[in-house]
């Protein structure tokens, strides 16, 4: 045990573990500092293990002061980690985190690629500034931990090298050089980082303080702290939680003596331990336990630790369902707050420039609000989607390039908020970017008034202040470490700076608090519940660190796995002693269903007792079922497939409608009567509909052209190619993406094949007679009540010798064949061909010599690009017409039941409940049960 001459003068006060250590501390401070009606602690600094404990101690002090009616000057109450700042004089200003990060980044930029790779900076073809910035985080952390223990990288290397098996010399050499260059940069800036400042103070024996320092829970002080305390020994009082048997478990700095704690047995009774199988079960156990307290404690008196974040939602929701609100005091990051989210969305859009990112930026509530004001309308987003769905925007410029005045207006409005795109695309210094982003935020949020009393608004307001601070930091960067970077990179700096920023919202007074393990230990609620009492959570083990594996940590005297275990054992010791009620809950599986081990801390008894506990954990784990009061629930599905307003009358119907009805009557109603449309952001390629339209237009143009009688495939081909190109450019875009180009080329290939077929067809005497014949229609008698059937036929040919007619429908998508039109029971699968036939029969066209119907196939398979025509027999025709009649009758009776066997998935499946297990089935009367 290290004993230092001056360390002798550090004063130690013991605190009885049966007491709340915080109350004991408050009382001790009262005894020490209160004189008459004055309790002046302005010269005292109190260090506590957690910031939560700091808050609680302040509260206790205020309570005493108010109860005793004394004039209080509170002491400085801070976490132990901040204590060193009261123990030495700073000779230089201290760099902010951001400055340190950028100093490291600047230092990293001076390294060669191999060196960078060696210390874990991902280097691909070129060195990205953002990679350097990213790496600086890791290095800064390493520096912080080592410097906190008085080591430079060089020192660490030397100590590591004592191990003959050590293999990472090269890496640490680079780290050392990097650190030297970092110090150089800091020197030039005339600033210190805090670790270096402390270290120098210790090394130069310059520690001293006017304050009286008291520290509670100094169980794991780092080396710097220990040395500092030695130097100011007489001013220090350590409050140590121990009884006579555990007194020897602490050294002169109040730190734990590992050997002592390792062998100490901490009793945990079987009642204090319960095991849940899954995360949900752990939560249920917590509720059961709290429920059994039978109202003896108030919400303030209960604290629940969730050392594993993943359990928090389970706990929150289960306890919530038990009628009690829970407050998560583990803190929230601000990344979800509106202003931060806005910047993230902007960054994403700037990075990929995809339509989907563009749309997501527009959907941000603040952007949406500003744009709605600017455009003076509210349905602009819906309109945009419709416009865009007609284009094929993968990158947003594509859409810009095509004249949609609506899109342009939106883009202009957006530019008013974000500035013009040229500026956003240039490289600027971080100091400049900070102004840009400040302006953007100001333009977006000026005029947004929130109420501070509203917790959500408070969250936003705080995040805005943090953002403001971050931008301010950035703006103040000195030139030497300022970097020229892109808009996205600058946003990365801002966002990363905020990444770890936590916001702690105020706890409503009637809520149970959920906190971290360490917070719980230094809390003083009489009821304590600890969840996830599993190995690797309590105690944690940190293995596999790329720079500091456990062995090296041990050598350097850093916190290693053994110390982590010992610390948690001490904490468990405190917990067991100071609480009226204690429950430890362990899990068997984590959220991902990985097996969990019980904590080692649960097994510090004799082998038989341990064996029994182990068997209990394996076999008696609890898995309460979801509890639902079944009686109160409906037995039958209540989510109806919406009933449809009956059709008053059916005056007309199109040929293709029949086929839709055949697939699913309900979908017919939605798609053909209500004509509902659907949109998605992810447009990756031209869809079938667009390609079909394009092909049809081209073929139509051909039918109207002078070449329509050509028998030379080369001429036809040339025509079709050119037509395709100009149409595409006119109607879709000038700039095409490779994928669209391929699609176009494919279509071109099909048209090539078609040219051959067309030429042959003309050679065989077929002349194009009608081309995209508009709206052929004819009254169709159904039970004396006629309906108008309409159809648009792609093309009608007539043979110059036989004078027969041929009705042709062009198909570009799924394979169509005249052979598969009728199923084995003689039922038509599609009524398209017979109905065209019927329509033509009654038209002015001369069809005395017979009619052929069929497809002009332009489908996927090149071999199958051909004209596929048949002649229909009278029986077939009549069957088809009768089938059509049946459909009309059904429609007139408003029979629109969904087809129960929909084989494919489409946008309507949610409405029709195609995948739903308990699908809603209308009772025969058609009413909901």
């Amino acid at each position, binding site marked *: 045990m290290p004993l230092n001459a001056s360390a002798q003068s550090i004063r130690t006060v013991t605190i009885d573990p049966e007491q709340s250590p915080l109350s004991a501390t408050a009382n001790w401070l009262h005894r020490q500092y209160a004189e008459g009606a004055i309790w002046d602690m302005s010269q005292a600094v109190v260090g506590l293990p957690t910031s939560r404990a700091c*808050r609680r101690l302040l509260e206790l002090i205020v309570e005493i002061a108010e109860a005793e009616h004394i004039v209080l*000057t509170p002491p*400085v109450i801070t976490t132990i980690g901040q204590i060193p700042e009261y123990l030495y004089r700073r*000779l230089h200003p*201290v760099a902010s985190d951001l400055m340190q990060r950028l100093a490291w980044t600047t230092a990293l930029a001076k390294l060669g690629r191999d060196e960078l790779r060696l210390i*874990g900076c*991902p280097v691909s073809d070129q060195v990205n500034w953002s990679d350097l910035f990213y790496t600086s*985080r890791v290095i800064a952390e390493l520096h912080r931990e080592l410097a906190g223990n008085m080591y430079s990288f060089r020192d660490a290397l030397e100590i590591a090298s004592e191990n003959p*098996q050590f293999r990472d010399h090269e890496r640490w050499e680079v780290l050392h050089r990097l650190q030297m260059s970092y110090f150089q940069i800091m020197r030039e800036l005339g600033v210190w980082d805090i670790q270096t400042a402390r270290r120098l103070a210790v090394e130069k024996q310059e520690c001293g303080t006017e304050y009286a320092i008291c520290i509670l829970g100094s169980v794991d002080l780092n080396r710097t702290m220990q040395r500092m305390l030695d130097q100011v020994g007489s001013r220090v009082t350590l409050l140590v939680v121990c009884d006579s048997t555990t007194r020897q478990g602490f050294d002169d700095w109040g730190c734990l003596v590992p050997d002592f704690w390792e062998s100490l047995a901490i009793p945990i009774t079987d009642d204090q331990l319960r095991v849940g199988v899954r995360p949900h079960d752990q939560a249920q156990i917590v*509720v*059961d336990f709290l429920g059994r307290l039978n109202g003896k*404690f108030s919400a*303030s008196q209960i604290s629940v630790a969730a050392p594993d974040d993943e359990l928090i939602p389970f706990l929150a*929701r289960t306890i919530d369902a038990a009628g009690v609100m829970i407050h998560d005091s583990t803190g929230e990051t601000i990344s979800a707050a509106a202003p931060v989210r806005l910047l993230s969305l902007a960054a994403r859009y700037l990075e990929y420039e995809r339509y989907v990112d563009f749309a997501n930026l527009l*959907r941000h*509530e603040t952007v949406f609000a500003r744009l709605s004001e600017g455009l003076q*309308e*509210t349905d602009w987003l*819906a309109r945009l989607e419709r416009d865009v769905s007609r284009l094929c925007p*993968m*990158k947003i410029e594509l859409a810009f390039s095509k004249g949609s005045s609506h899109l342009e207006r939106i883009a202009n409005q957006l530019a008013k908020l974000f500035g013009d795109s040229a500026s956003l695309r240039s490289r600027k210094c971080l100091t400049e970017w900070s102004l840009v982003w400040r302006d953007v935020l*100001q333009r977006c*949020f*000026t*005029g947004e*008034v929130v109420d*501070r009393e509203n917790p959500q608004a408070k969250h*936003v307001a705080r995040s805005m202040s943090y953002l*403001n601070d971050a931008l301010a930091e950035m*703006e*103040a960067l000195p030139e030497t470490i300022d970097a020229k970077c892109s808009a996205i990179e600058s946003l990365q700096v801002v966002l990363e700076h905020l990444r770890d920023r936590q916001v702690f919202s105020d706890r409503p007074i009637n809520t149970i608090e959920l906190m971290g393990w360490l917070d719980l230990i230094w809390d003083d609620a009489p009821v304590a519940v600890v969840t996830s009492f599993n*190995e690797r959570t309590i105690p944690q*083990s940190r*293995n596999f660190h790329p720079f500091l594996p456990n062995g090296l940590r041990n050598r350097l005297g850093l916190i290693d796995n053994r110390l982590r275990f010992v610390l948690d054992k001490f904490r468990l010791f405190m917990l067991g002693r100071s609480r009226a009620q204690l429950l430890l809950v362990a899990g068997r599986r984590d*959220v991902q269903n990985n*097996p969990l081990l019980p904590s*080692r801390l649960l097994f510090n008894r004799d*082998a*038989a007792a341990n064996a029994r506990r182990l068997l209990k954990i*394996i*076999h008696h784990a609890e898995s*309460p*079922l*979801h509890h*639902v009061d079944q009686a109160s*629930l409906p037995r039958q*599905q209540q*989510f*109806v497939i*919406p009933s449809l307003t009956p059709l*008053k009358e059916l005056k007309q119907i199109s040929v293709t409608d029949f086929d839709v009805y055949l697939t699913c009557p309900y979908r017919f109603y*939605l798609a053909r009567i209500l004509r509902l449309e659907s949109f998605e952001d992810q447009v990756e*390629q031209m869809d079938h509909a667009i390609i079909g339209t394009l092909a049809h237009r081209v073929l139509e143009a051909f039918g109207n052209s002078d070449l329509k009688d050509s028998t030379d495939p080369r001429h036809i081909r040339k025509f079709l190619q050119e037509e395709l190109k100009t149409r595409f450019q006119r109607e879709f875009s000038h700039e095409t993406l490779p*994928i669209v180009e391929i699609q176009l080329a494919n*279509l071109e290939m099909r048209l090539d094949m078609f040219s051959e077929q067309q030429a042959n067809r003309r050679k065989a005497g077929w002349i194009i007679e009608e081309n995209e014949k508009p709206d052929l229609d004819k009254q169709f008698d159904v039970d004396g009540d006629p309906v108008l059937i309409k159809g648009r036929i792609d093309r009608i040919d007539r043979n110059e010798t036989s004078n027969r007619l041929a009705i042709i429908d062009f198909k570009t998508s799924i394979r169509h064949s005249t052979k598969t039109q009728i199923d084995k029971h003689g039922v038509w699968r599609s009524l398209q061909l017979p109905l065209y036939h019927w329509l033509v029969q009654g038209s002015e066209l001369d069809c005395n010599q017979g009619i052929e119907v069929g497809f002009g196939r332009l489908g996927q*398979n*090149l071999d199958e690009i051909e004209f596929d025509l048949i002649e229909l027999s009278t029986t077939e025709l009549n069957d088809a017409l009768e089938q059509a009649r049946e459909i009309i009758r059904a429609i007139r009776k408003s029979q629109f039941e969904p087809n129960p066997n929909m084989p494919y998935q489409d*946008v309507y499946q949610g*409405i029709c409940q195609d995948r*739903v297990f308990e699908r809603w089935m209308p009772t025969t009367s058609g009413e909901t049960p």
Partner: protein
Amino acid sequence: MNPLTKNQLIRASAGTGKTYQLSSRYLQLLAAQTSPQEILATTFTRKAAGEILDRVFERLAKSVLSEDFANETARSIEYESGAGTDFFGLQLQRLLNSLNLLQISTLDAFFAQLARAFAIELGLRQDWRMIDEAQQSLIITDSIRETLQHVDAREIIFLLNKGETDIRIGELVRTTIDQLHETYLEAPESAWLRVEVQPVDDTVIQLIIDELLQLADQCTDKRITSRLKNDVELLRTQNWPEIVGHTLTQNVLNGTNRYYNKMLDDKILQIYQQILVYSRSKLLVQLAMQNRGALQLLKIYDQAYQRMEMATGGLTFASVNRRVAQLFSKLTPDDVNQRLDQNIKHLLLDEFQDTSLSQWQVLKPFAVTAIGAQENGSLFCVGDTKQAIYGWRGGVAEIFDEVQTYLDEASELAELTESRRSSKVIIDTVNQVFLNMHLVPHSEEASEFIASWQRRFTLHSTHYPELPGFATLQEQPEDSLISLRAYAAGRIAELANQHPGRSIGVLVRTNAVVNELAIHLGRLGIRASEEGGNYLLDSAAVNLIYSLLHLIDHPGDEVARFHVTHSRLGEILELSPARYENERLNKQHDVRDGRMDADSIDDFCQQARTLIGEIGLARAIEKWSEQLMDQCTLRERTRLLQLVDMAFGHVDHNEPLATFRRQLETYRVDDPLQADVRVMTIHQAKGLEFDIVVLPQLDCPLIRPGGGFVVGRESPTKPISSVCKFVNKQQRPLLSAELLQAYTQQYEQEVNGELCLLYVAMTRAIHALHLIVSNGQKPSQKKWQGLILGTLVSDQNDGEYLWSAGNSNWDADSRAARESSDIDALISTNPNRDRQYVRQIELADLSTGVRMLPVGSPSRREGGQQIELGSLLRSSENSVAMKFGSLIHACFESITWLEAGIPQDSLLLERLAEVEGATQEHVEAAIRQFKNYVQQPNIGRLLSQNTYSIEVPIPKGFADRSGMYRVENERPFAIRQDESILQGFIDRLVLLEQDQTVLVADVIDFKTDSLRPGDQRAEQQRVDWYRPQLEAYRFAVSKIFRLELEFVTTHLVFVATDRVVKVH
């Protein structure tokens, strides 16, 4: 011989107690004083890892508590000198003390640890994380998008797509990538270039055509003439596949040289041989280009993927594994041990047949070291090549055989064939099928591989011959009108009703069928859950929320809008159906109007987005779901709760809603309600057992129809040597022997895989096995059902069944038998099973022990309760000003009265060093400025003892103002104010004291706002802004010194304009 040094390789057939063997080995090592950190035990699934752990713990614990168990355990681990409970007690303590060092995990988890330890060497970001397949699919999609934008993409895809005109390029590319990316990563580039092309002279073609025409003229056989003429056309259109594919050329190729049973004459033969040479060259050129095209595409894609992987920091297990494997080829086990801080000496590898080559690459050095280490290491492998069903995921059963070659003579090789799971009927059925399947009518492609599988199969037996059982093979009746799946569902429903309380596993080959069956069963009122769960979209309520989310993103989406507005949710959210619905209903088939309804939907969506922004998606979904709860059946309710769980668990706040909707489509979630029937794929059933197993999908082919690419290796454990686009049977004779070999390998793998699946499926059954096939199937080696029919069914029809064995009354029999079977004395039934859970929490009222009041500080009250967000950015015009402000404050705090002088620069410097983020330059500037400020008249008067006075009345009872002004700079305070603690510092507090009693107090707050001199309005605005803050100070001071408020004044000092403003 010390059992420890013995390396062991155990082939354990299904149900023969693999886990027991493995746990025995673990205990054996432990008993030999091996440290747990020297033992690595791995398996493939999390479940199996959990089972191994439990088994080790349980056996050890029992051996501590019972002499009998101790003896039994000692026997099973061949521990000679009778180890007793004490001995095992020591081992248990040792194990428990090193729980943190335990290495019993999935291989994936082990590799993830390795990757963490070697993050730098692997070039990984420090914060990389594991992602699952659904998350990966997002990265894949983005990478494909990027690939398709690549300049070269067009040409490549064109190549790849040659002969096809499918417009769905995205899908084509995705399929190619899905199939080949792993191959690309594994195969050397040369493997893609294996098609050898001999160029031909293009002028020959015209000669051939002329000759064909000539021959056609001469030929008298009509059929041949027409063939010749056709071929002329085919040659002209360069339709090589057709030319090579027709019967005549095929017959020339295979040497029969006949056409319509007639020998071809020489002339024809010669010309066709020429044609073949020519076509072959043409086809191979095309094939080679396609291979190259695929290679290039994958190259581009892989670059994009790697970039995305880096950018997101998300790695899949496969990716981690590959990286680690690459790295480990350069490291020694010593390197690894040093970094891991441990020394892995003993390897226990479970399910060894599923090990992939890249996994083996990592394990092999450990294994080889272990084998060679004599006493200091050992290897233990257990597995079953008959259960190698993960070939598609890279599992290579042949590694099992390879390992055998590393072992020395002392090693133990064992085969276990006695089932500890299945009844005799089941085992007999398994034997009958797998011992006789080679006798079933042949299929040329599969029979060779079926025969070799059969040879590897050893007769199985059972440990429980008395266990009752039943097996049937049933055919869907001919007159049944429903689909086979629907029929099977009906049968399963019957079984579920007949055997309540029995576990029923319905095992199928594909995921699609799982879903189909689950829906059918669900509709028959049978609770069916799939291992790994179903999509939440099997719930109507979830669908509704899904549509709502879609609508929020896309206010113009009419389908989603229809869904939401015509539902209970629409009512709750007060969304009425769109007006256009009625208009369209009445104006049928008019040309669609381009106008949208401008109505409340846009507002609603904006509100919803704002809500999500404020409280998060999860809470928003929770809120909406709660409103639907009263409508829900038990199952719907459960699903909604799971939806909320999913939202809480998976949502990243910055991901768009679409990502969450995508998750809903991709993730399966267990239905936690007790399921009567579990439906799952056979892959998922690995390691499970059921009282009753139903196999309703037996129409699986042993060889799948070809397509995609064929991958060849010299041998299964060797690296890939060739990759080639699949060609049909007709063209295959044109390929080189090496490529042909690849086809054989592929077929062998497929057949093996399918047989393994069938074996795994059948051996899951404990008591009963029911096989269901469609009507009219024949024995054959083409499909599973053909093998089953061919091996089980003899001529006579067995009434209801095509075939059956055992006792249909097995259930009653086994229930009777079960009563008597002995149960573990040590572990009585779980007392928690019937525990009554308290579901409501009652709390004492608030007055009891109130703690942890919120802490507020006055400076947070600036601007008052209503605050404009933009102003929070304006509050300090720029950061320099902010830093400057802190520095100036620090300066002012150093002054009590000016008369006492301004502190020395050095002292100020020291003070100012406390201000974080300021540079030396800032500090010096601030000091200069401060000196100017104090020279100003108003500020000078305020800080000067001679001129300062508080302009408030003195409390009654104190005659005069005489007394002492006391200054407290940066005066800390903490008080309770209502339900909060108010804490802060007062810049300068001047107290007038008389007889140690504070009479009046003046709060002075310094502000560095840059105001224009004389701008009264601006100043007034700032004063209003700060007023709430000063009010708080005033309150605090009055409370601390117990003064009435009227005796506390407050002043704002704008140092830049030398203005001292009285606020209170």
